[in-house]
């Protein structure tokens, strides 16, 4: 075994973080986020990445219920926050 799950997890987290940073930068240039959008998007991205890390780690340690709960407790709120961020950003862009 060359890569155990934990190496793949942290590599994937790096990729997701880079993509998220790039997308935030790109959309900020296009839509110019306000403070509430920034707060919502930052918490959303952090929770999303944390939720993925939590759930993947729980699967690796053999606790599938903890993995499912990780998705419910961290990832679902993160998606709600990211959708809210999108709404806030588009609302601001439309009001210009």
């Amino acid at each position, binding site marked *: *075994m060359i890569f155990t799950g934990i190496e793949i997890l942290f590599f994937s987290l790096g990729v997701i973080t880079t993509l998220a940073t*790039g997308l935030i*930068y*790109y959309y900020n*240039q296009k839509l110019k986020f306000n403070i509430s959008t920034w707060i919502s998007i930052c918490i959303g991205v952090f929770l999303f990445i944390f939720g993925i*890390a*939590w759930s993947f*780690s*729980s699967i*690796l*340690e*053999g*606790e*599938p*219920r*903890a993995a499912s*709960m*990780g998705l419910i*407790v961290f990832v679902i709120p993160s998606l709600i926050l990211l959708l809210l961020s999108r709404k806030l950003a588009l609302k601001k862009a439309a009001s210009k």
Partner: protein
Amino acid sequence: MSKNENSSKLNRRDFFKIGGITAAVGAGALTTFPQKTAAKELDKRLVDKIVTTHDDFPVEVRSDYVPPRNWDHVQARSFFVNEIRAIGETVEDDIVADGQAFVQKMNFAYDNDKIGYNQADKALLAGAWAMNNYAAGPSPAAVPNFGVNSWEQRTDKVQFALFDNDYVVKEKYQFESKQEAANQIKRAAKLFGADLVGITRRDKRWDYSKFLNPVSPLFRKPLLAPPSKEQMEELHNWGPDKFVNDWSDFPFEPKTVIVLAFNMDYEGISTSPSFVGSAAAGAGYSEMAKVPYQLAVYLKNLGFNAVSAGNDMGLSVPYAIAAGLGEASRLGQAVTYKYGPRVRLAKVYTDFDFVEYDKPKSFGVMDFCKNCMRCADACPTKAISFDKEPSFEPTHDNKDNAWYNVKGVKKYHVDAKKCFKLWGELGDDCGICMASCPYNKPDFWHHRLVDSITAAMPGPVHDLMREMDILFGYGNVEDKESIKKFYSPEGKSYDGH
């Protein structure tokens, strides 16, 4: 040409520029400070904030506290009934019955229709305990000076042995500093197989004041030569008047106690109560028979006296607290930072004292225990206290006759009699309290993070953490699926590929 297209091209280029510069600066910083990476520094700062170091023993001890004797606990008074009676001490019939049932079931019984108690599970248990049973014998019941835990401090090699290093060499090794001594002793303990190690001063409060050892000296160690005339005479004259020793019989004055902790298998303990759970504990006991002995021989070869000990010689939990390995808890066991209560403890007593001693540390366990009570809820016989605050005296139903509880130390007192009753019913050593504890987790980053956050938070958050622990599915006990999970090859690599 729109303004947007221009800014988009510029932005993309800027983005790659920023990314490139950041990567170059990051790589440069890492090579310039290889020993001081951001993660290491962050981790150290967080741990320093969460872990409190104490100069003195962090648990209140009343002035009338009296150290117990090694037979002031239920196992000794149940397993050595005749010997206890022979030295004029009392035994209680119900405890004797529980002990007999426990020994009968654990040694001879299995049930192929009962999950966790079939012949294969029994075989697992037997194998796990084998090294303890062979090398340290009754040490789990706190009987010292047996097998590898012998008090003997020879100064020469055994005549008939090809290889023998188990003697105190004449030349004492001089370490350059106390810190170097501590570093090398701890490294040796790790090499031999300890998961955690701490060094503390010998404290007579935590040593048994007297020792019952009914085994004749001739049968305490494998015979390396035919018994001598003196040994045969000693055997012939062996009797109750020689069963009890005290510290005046010990071959040297110990100054230092090295405390070792051994992590028990997480999946194994999760099966508690079962023979598989007991096997996880047994594997820990077998480590306790091996590693402290190796460390004692190491110290003897440095030129110092040393005696290894498992549960015998003294109380392991306060010694582990004093050596900075863990904190006291509701379930009566030391809760360690890395493995929670899922550890077995052992000790090495030595007269070596040129060493940097560790200090006791706390990280919020006792505060968490005040609100959690998962172990108390999970215990089928309700042997664990539901009191909000710890106390100097036991408060349980049998408190008026709790000769088995250490009094005068502010802690949660477990009703060992009720606990032992369950051992008799099950035929194994339970472990439900350990399995249910929120600090009992696999060694994964997210649990260390949660523990650290919990330690920094006030009481009401602890209640939430307890509920979340249940919701997330941790600490389930009496779960038959856990046996299947223990044996399942899923997630395990047996051939290393």
